[in-house]
C-alpha cells in the first residue's frame, strides 16, 4: 500500500513517540541536538488527563497511549495504540504513543499486567486486557457524559473522539476528569472482530518517521552529564575465571579512569547472570576499548576449554544410541513395528549453535546516586532490569528508574542477555561513582550471548502399503545451558514431537544434554531448528511412499482445519510442482509456532557447479486473526531473512570452549543481494483462537529451501549452514 506523505509539523508531532522516560522525541532540527541526545530522568507525562494507566486525553484531543512493552521492531507501539484506539474510538491521527513508566508499574500494583515482549504474544494473548483498557475508558467517558446530561449511558454514543446524545455533543476531553473518577458496575467486554473499524486495516507504524532521520533514541545513544564509558572482556570460555590483569600497563594512557573486576553471578539460580571478567573505564568508549585490548589479561579457562562442536557431536552420537525421555507417544509398539518393517526411511539431521547478533550491540547505562538509580537497558522486558539493578545494588525498587528507549533488535536474546550487561553497568557505576555506559564490542556481543541451542536428531519411519507412514520414531539431542530448564526441555524436540501428521503409531524421545554455553530463546525457539528437520523428513517420507509432498501433507493433516486452510491456499498461490528441469526446484514446508501455522513454498536454482540462488519464497500464514496486515507482512518478510540467514550462512564455530567466529566477517548473515523475493498471503481461520506473528514466519523457510534443493539437485541437505554443502550436480 502507499502511505500518504505527511510532513506537516502537526502531523509529525502526532506520530512521535516518547523515549528516555516521558520525553517526546523532537522531530529533528539541526542545532538542537543537545536537547535530544540526553534522555532525561523519568517523569510521567503530565500533559493530558489520565483516565487510566494506559491513556491520557489532552485539551487539543491528542490521545497519548502509554505502551508498557518494548519496541524492538515488532511494532508494539503501533499495535498497542491501535488496540486501545479501536475500543476508545478516537481518530487514529489523534493518537501518539509513549513508553509507560516501569517504576510505577513495578511499585504500584503492576497496572499493565504484562510488560514482557517475547513469545509473539503481545496481540495474541494480551489483546483482551489491552483492548479492555480502551473499552473501559470509553464507557466511563460515556457514563460521565450521561450523568452531566441526565441521560442513560446506553444513549450516549462515543465515536471518533466525540460524545453525543440527542442534541448534546462534547469532545472526550470535556468529560475526561469526571470519567477518571467513575467506577463502572460492570466492566465492558471487548469488541468482536466483526465490529472493528481500525483493527484489521493496514496501518503505518508510528515509529517510522523518527527512524529515518537518526532521532530515534536507542539505549546505546544515552548521553548523561559526567558520564564515563566502559569496555568489558569476560572470559572467552563462559564460566572460566579471571586469573589476573595488569592495569599498570594502561593506567597512564589518556582518559583512562579505572579497571573494575567483574565476578560471575550464576544465572542458574538468579534471574540474570554476569560472567567473570574485567572492565576498563575511560572518558570515551574508544579509549576504554583500546586500552582494554592492550591490557594483559590471564584467564583460567577451566575444563570446558575442551568442548567443541566436534566433541558435542561425539556426545550426541552416543546419546542417539540411548533411550531418552519420552516427549510424546501415540499408538502401538513403535520400535516393534520399525523392527518388523521392510520399508524403513531413516535420516540424521543437525543444526549448530546460532547467535542473536541484533544490530544494536548489547549495552547499558546506569547512574547510581544516593537518591536514585537510573537505568537504560535494551531489555525485552523493561521491568526486569529495574528489578535486577535493585537486587544487585540492594536498593528499593521505588528508587530505581528505567528509561525505555527503542531497541535495536532483540529476537529473544534481550531477556537475560541484556540484564547481564545492566548488572555490569550497575556494578561499575557504583565502583567509579559516576554514570557509566557499558558497550560490548561485537566480538563480546557474540561470544557472551546466550545462544540458540544446537540440535542433533535421528528420525525413522516405517512406510505402509498405502505409501504413508504407519510408525514414526524420533530421538533428539540438544545442548542447553546447565541448570537452565526454562526454555527446555519441551523446546528440544518441539515441532517434531508436536508434528501434526496423523501417523497412527509414534514415539518421540529427547535428551536434554547440558553444556557450559549459556543458551536462550531465539526467534521461534525450537521450531527454528526443528522445522528444518521434521519438514525435510516429511518430504523424505512422502517420496519414499511415492507421494507428492503437498498432497502427502494434505492427506496427513486431514480434518485439521487450520493446517488444511494453509496448505490449500499454498497450493492455490504457489504453483508448487515437482516437474521442473534439473537445476531448478520448488519445495514446501509447514510449521506451527506460537500457535500460528505458516506454510512456505521456496523456488531455487542451482548451477551445475553448485551455486545456489533462492529465487522466491511464498508464505501463507494462519494466525487466526491479524490486527495490522501491513506490519504483519513486514514481520513475515523479515522472519524469512532471519531464518534463512542461519540456515544458509550461519552456524557458530565452537572450538576450545569458545566461539571463534564472533563478528560479521566470519559469522555470515544474509545480505540484500542474497534476499529472495517474498510473497506473503494470509489464510485466517478467524475461529476464536489467536496465533503470533513476530516469529512464526521463519521456521518453514529453511526446510522449503532444502526441499527445493533436493528437487533441483537430488541432494538432501541435512545440516546447516547450507553454504558448507557441495550442491554441484551433473
Amino acid at each position, binding site marked *: 500500500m502507499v502511505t500518504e506523505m505527511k*510532513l506537516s509539523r502537526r502531523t509529525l508531532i502526532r506520530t512521535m513517540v516518547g523515549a528516555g522516560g516521558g520525553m517526546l522525541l523532537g522531530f529533528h532540527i539541526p542545532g538542537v541536538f543537545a536537547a535530544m541526545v540526553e534522555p532525561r530522568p523519568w517523569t510521567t507525562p503530565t500533559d493530558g488527563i489520565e483516565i487510566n494507566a494506559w491513556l491520557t486525553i489532552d485539551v487539543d484531543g491528542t490521545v497519548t497511549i502509554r505502551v508498557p512493552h518494548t519496541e524492538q521492531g515488532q511494532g508494539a507501539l503501533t499495535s498497542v495504540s491501535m488496540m486501545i484506539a479501536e475500543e476508545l474510538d478516537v481518530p487514529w491521527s489523534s493518537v501518539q504513543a509513549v513508553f509507560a513508566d516501569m517504576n510505577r508499574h513495578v511499585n504500584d500494583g503492576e497496572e499493565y499486567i504484562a510488560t514482557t515482549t517475547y513469545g509473539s504474544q503481545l496481540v495474541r494473548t494480551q489483546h483482551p486486557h489491552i483492548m479492555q483498557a480502551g473499552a473501559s475508558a470509553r464507557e466511563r467517558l460515556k457514563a460521565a457524559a450521561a450523568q452531566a446530561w441526565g441521560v442513560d449511558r446506553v444513549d450516549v454514543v462515543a465515536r471518533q473522539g466525540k460524545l453525543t446524545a440527542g442534541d448534546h455533543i462534547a469532545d472526550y476531553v470535556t468529560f475526561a476528569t469526571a470519567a477518571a473518577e467513575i467506577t463502572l458496575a460492570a466492566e465492558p467486554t471487548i469488541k468482536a472482530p466483526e465490529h472493528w473499524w481500525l483493527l484489521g486495516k493496514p496501518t503505518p507504524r508510528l*515509529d517510522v518517521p523518527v527512524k529515518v532521520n537518526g532521532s530515534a*533514541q536507542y539505549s546505546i545513544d544515552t548521553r548523561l552529564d559526567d558520564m564515563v564509558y566502559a569496555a568489558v572482556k569476560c572470559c572467552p570460555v563462559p564460566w572460566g575465571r579471571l586469573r589476573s590483569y595488569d592495569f599498570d600497563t594502561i593506567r597512564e594512557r589518556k582518559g583512562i579512569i579505572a579497571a573494575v573486576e567483574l565476578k560471575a553471578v550464576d544465572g542458574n539460580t538468579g534471574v540474570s547472570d554476569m560472567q567473570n571478567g574485567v572492565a576498563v573505564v575511560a572518558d*570515551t568508549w574508544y579509549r576504554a576499548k583500546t586500552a582494554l585490548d592492550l591490557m594483559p589479561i590471564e584467564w583460567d579457562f577451566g575444563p570446558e576449554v575442551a568442548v567443541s562442536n566436534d566433541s558435542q557431536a561425539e556426545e550426541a552420537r552416543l546419546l542417539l544410541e540411548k533411550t531418552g525421555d519420552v516427549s510424546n507417544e501415540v499408538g502401538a509398539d513403535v520400535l516393534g513395528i520399525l523392527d518388523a518393517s521392510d520399508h524403513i526411511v531413516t535420516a540424521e539431521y543437525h543444526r549448530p549453535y546460532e547467535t542473536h547478533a541484533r544490530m544494536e550491540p548489547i549495552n547499558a547505562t546506569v547512574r547510581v546516586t544516593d537518591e536514585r538509580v537510573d537505568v537504560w537497558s535494551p531489555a525485552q522486558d523493561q521491568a526486569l532490569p529495574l528489578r535486577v539493578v535493585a537486587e544487585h545494588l540492594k536498593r528499593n525498587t521505588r528508587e530505581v528508574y528505567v528509561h525505555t528507549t527503542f531497541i535495536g*533488535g532483540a529476537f529473544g536474546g534481550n531477556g537475560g542477555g541484556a540484564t547481564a550487561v545492566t548488572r555490569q553497568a550497575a556494578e561499575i557505576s557504583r565502583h567509579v561513582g559516576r554514570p557509566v555506559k557499558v558497550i560490548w564490542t561485537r566480538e563480546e556481543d557474540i561470544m557472551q550471548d546466550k545462544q540458540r541451542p544446537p540440535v542433533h536428531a535421528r528420525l525413522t519411519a516405517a512406510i505402509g502399503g498405502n505409501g504413508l507412514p504407519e510408525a514414526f520414531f524420533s530421538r533428539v539431542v540438544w545442548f542447553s545451558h546447565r541448570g537452565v530448564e526454562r526454555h527446555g526441555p519441551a523446546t528440544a524436540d518441539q515441532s517434531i514431537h508436536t508434528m501434526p501428521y496423523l501417523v497412527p503409531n509414534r514415539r518421540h524421545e529427547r535428551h536434554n544434554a547440558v553444556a557450559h554455553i549459556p543458551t536462550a530463546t531465539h526467534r521461534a525457539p525450537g521450531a527454528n531448528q526443528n522445522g528444518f528437520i521434521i519438514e525435510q523428513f516429511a518430504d523424505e517420507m512422502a517420496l519414499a511412499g511415492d507421494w507428492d509432498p503437498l498432497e502427502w501433507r494434505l492427506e496427513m493433516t486431514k480434518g485439521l482445519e487450520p493446517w488444511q486452510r494453509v496448505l490449500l491456499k499454498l497450493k492455490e498461490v504457489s504453483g508448487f510442482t515437482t516437474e521442473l528441469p534439473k537445476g531448478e526446484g520448488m519445495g514446501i514446508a509447514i510449521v506451527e509456532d506460537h500457535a500460528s501455522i505458516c506454510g512456505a513454498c521456496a523456488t531455487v536454482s542451482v548451477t551445475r557447479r553448485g551455486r545456489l540462488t533462492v529465487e522466491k519464497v511464498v508464505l501463507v500464514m494462519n494466525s487466526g486473526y491479524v490486527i495490522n496486515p501491513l506490519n504483519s507482512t513486514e514481520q513475515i518478510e523479515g522472519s524469512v531473512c532471519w531464518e534463512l540467514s542461519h540456515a544458509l550462512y550461519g552456524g557458530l564455530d565452537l572450538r576450545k570452549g569458545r566461539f571463534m567466529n564472533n563478528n560479521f566477517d566470519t559469522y555470515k548473515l544474509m545480505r540484500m543481494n542474497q*534476499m529472495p523475493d517474498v510473497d506473503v498471503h494470509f489464510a485466517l481461520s478467524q475461529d476464536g483462537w489467536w496465533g503470533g506473528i513476530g516469529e512464526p514466519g521463519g521456521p518453514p523457510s529453511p526446510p522449503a529451501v532444502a526441499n527445493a534443493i533436493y528437487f533441483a539437485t537430488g541432494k538432501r541437505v541435512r545440516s546447516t549452514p547450507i553454504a558448507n554443502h557441495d550442491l554441484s550436480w551433473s
Partner: protein
Amino acid sequence: MTFTLRVNGKAYEVEAEPETPLLWVLRDNIGLTGTKFGCGIAQCGVCTVHLDGRPVRACATAAASAVGHEITTIEGLSDDNSHPVQRAWIEHSVPQCGYCQSGQIMSAAALLSRTASPTDSEIDSAMAGNLCRCGTFLRIRKAIHSAAEMAKSSGS
C-alpha cells in the same frame, strides 16, 4: 590532539587521538548519535556517513583523515524528513527496529546521487555492505526505486 571537522555544514573542534574512528568522534565527542556502532570492522554498514558525498564506514575511517572534508551524517540529510530517500522509506514502511536504517539511508542517498535510476543489481551491489537483521531488504530496494522516481519528478 585537537582538530576541526566539518559535519553537516558546521565546524566542530574535537580533542581525540587522530586514529580514533570517525564514528566515535561523531557519537561521543560531537553528540551525533544517529550514526550507529555495529561491528567496528566495516562489515555491517550501520555507521555509514558521507565524506564529500561518498559513502564511508565511519567505524573504519580515522577521524583525522576526515579533516578538510565535508562530512554528512543522517542528521544532515534534511531538516524535515524531506529527502527523497527519507520520504520513500516512510512510503514503503521500511524500518522495523530501525537501528541499521541510518546507514541504509546514507548508502542509498549516496547511490542515488551518482546513479539517478539504479537497476536492481546496481542497488544490490551498492547496498550489500549494509546488514539488516530485521530483514527489510525488499522494502529498501523498492524504496530506492521510489526515491529515484521522486527525485526525477521533482527535478532535483
